């Protein structure tokens, strides 16, 4: 970490970063979606997500040391749940890349990256809380914003709010 130095923002092409990952993991990741607002690729082999994450963090040409955001997303038409991770090489290269990982809607699970980026710890808990996918290997898989005994997964598109919670009428 070059402290004190004005960090270079000459963002390398996200595409170049993608090429490095693609070289290593090949068919396990999808083609690069080079849109203007949020360039991303998808991890097709979900089981490899932790390895890809570790590779992205530690590879000398990638150094995605900063996880800006991890959002859980519901894809009802595909029957899947997923996450979108916005990664960035903070202070090293400055490049940004988003990664999508998906899992089946019912009983699906995604490997946890809480051991790679500490940020992921609470964000994965939040994704679990809101959408109900499990994160394998997460150190503390509990609900975080909703109470522990809340029923259902609020951010799923087909979510129906429970009738009552400890005798309190919920839908108003």
């Amino acid at each position, binding site marked *: 970490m070059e402290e004190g130095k004005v960090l270079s923002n000459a963002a390398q092409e996200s595409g170049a970063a993608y090429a490095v990952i693609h070289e290593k993991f090949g068919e396990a990741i999808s083609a690069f979606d080079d849109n203007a*607002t949020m360039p991303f690729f998808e991890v097709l082999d979900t089981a490899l997500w932790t390895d890809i994450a570790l590779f992205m963090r530690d590879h000398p040409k990638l150094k995605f040391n900063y996880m800006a955001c991890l959002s859980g997303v519901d894809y009802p038409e595909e029957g899947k749940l997923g996450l979108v991770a916005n990664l960035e090489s903070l202070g090293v290269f400055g490049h940004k890349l988003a990664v999508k990982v998906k899992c089946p809607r019912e009983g699906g699970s995604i490997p946890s990256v809480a051991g790679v980026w500490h940020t992921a710890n609470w964000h994965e808990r939040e994704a679990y809380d809101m959408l109900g996918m499990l994160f394998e290997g997460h150190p503390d898989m509990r609900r975080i914003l909703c109470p522990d005994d809340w029923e259902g997964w609020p951010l799923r598109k087909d979510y129906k709010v429970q009738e009552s919670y400890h005798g309190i009428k919920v839908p108003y």
Partner: protein
Amino acid sequence: MQELEMAGQGSLRLSRKSDTIVVLEKDLSTEQMVLSMGPQHPSTHGVLRLECLTDGEVVTEAEPYLGYLHRCFEKHCEHVDYPAIVPYTDRMDYLAGINSEMAYCIAVEKLLDLEIPRRVEFIRVIVSELNRIASHLVAIGTYAIDLGAFTPFLFCFRDREHILNMLEWATGARMLYNYIWVGGLAYDVPAGFNERVLEFVNYFRPKALELQQLLTENEIFVKRTKGIGIMPADVAINYGWSGPMLRGSGVQWDIRRNDPYSIYPELDFAVPVPDGKLSVVGDCLSRHLVRALEIEESLKIIEQCIDKMPGTQGFDPRSAVPKRVRPKAGEVYGRAENPRGELGFYIQSDGKSTSPLRCKARSSCFVNLSAMKDLSRGQLIPDLVAIIGSLDIVLGEVDR
């Protein structure tokens, strides 16, 4: 998993200085006590609950519990139009409403690919920097209260009042503004606003210095904060810290500078980081110092903006505001530098609806707070309070 743990970057150093380690009685067997700090506690800054495992005065483990202020922001977003989300963002970080609005509007405008009038950008920057000062004043003031000094708090609130009055004059509200709209502003600033802002800047400069001296030149304040809750830079990045927290750890990273938005590239301002002379880099005092120094930088930004701001001829604050916000299908992650760090919005649009398919707020406080468990290990209860205060969390943003 074993391997992953080993690969985890760095490890937290014990944040107690070696000469102040508290030695407990060696042969005396003591029982640990569970102490529930919050949700109603004066120094958890809202409804945070920390379940502390304490051994006498030493906190061996503190587990944060959130959600007491969860207001389903993200669920609401899926049911209202894009412009109608703006008032909800105010209610996330209620101490810096304008900054939250700005972050959200930046994300949506990026998705819409909108061109914003130049004057709008200047006004946005002025009001958001004013709000940043107000927010930092609250942070510094409440931090002083956490450490037992009541007077700086009221000095801070006295000056914050001037800012709130100005923002009320410009926007019509004191805290929940709904001023920055997608593509523009609700209104132009009133006539004479610039003069009043300049007057405030001139009034406030010496006061800011006085405030800083009142605290950083106070021996007890320095004793209470120096070397407490040290966060090394690499761990801070790994935790996703941003804003004054990350800069307090010595990383010169500011989204206004490193991933610029709006008119920040045209402005001349410094990104202050602690030099390690007064404080230990990464400790509570560093984070406090960064906030104090940032106030000065914000004042500079405001002065420059007023200097360069285009006139009102033919200006309509709503000229670029779309009649109906319906972005094409796609995703965006837009972010801005908030007083508390990076506030980002991940928005997913299906191209058909006028409300987002998914809108996730990446809250800086939420991320900063997640390091609490590691920071609190082995601290004394008064230090725990000092650490929570230095994180400067707003529970409205943590819980959304």
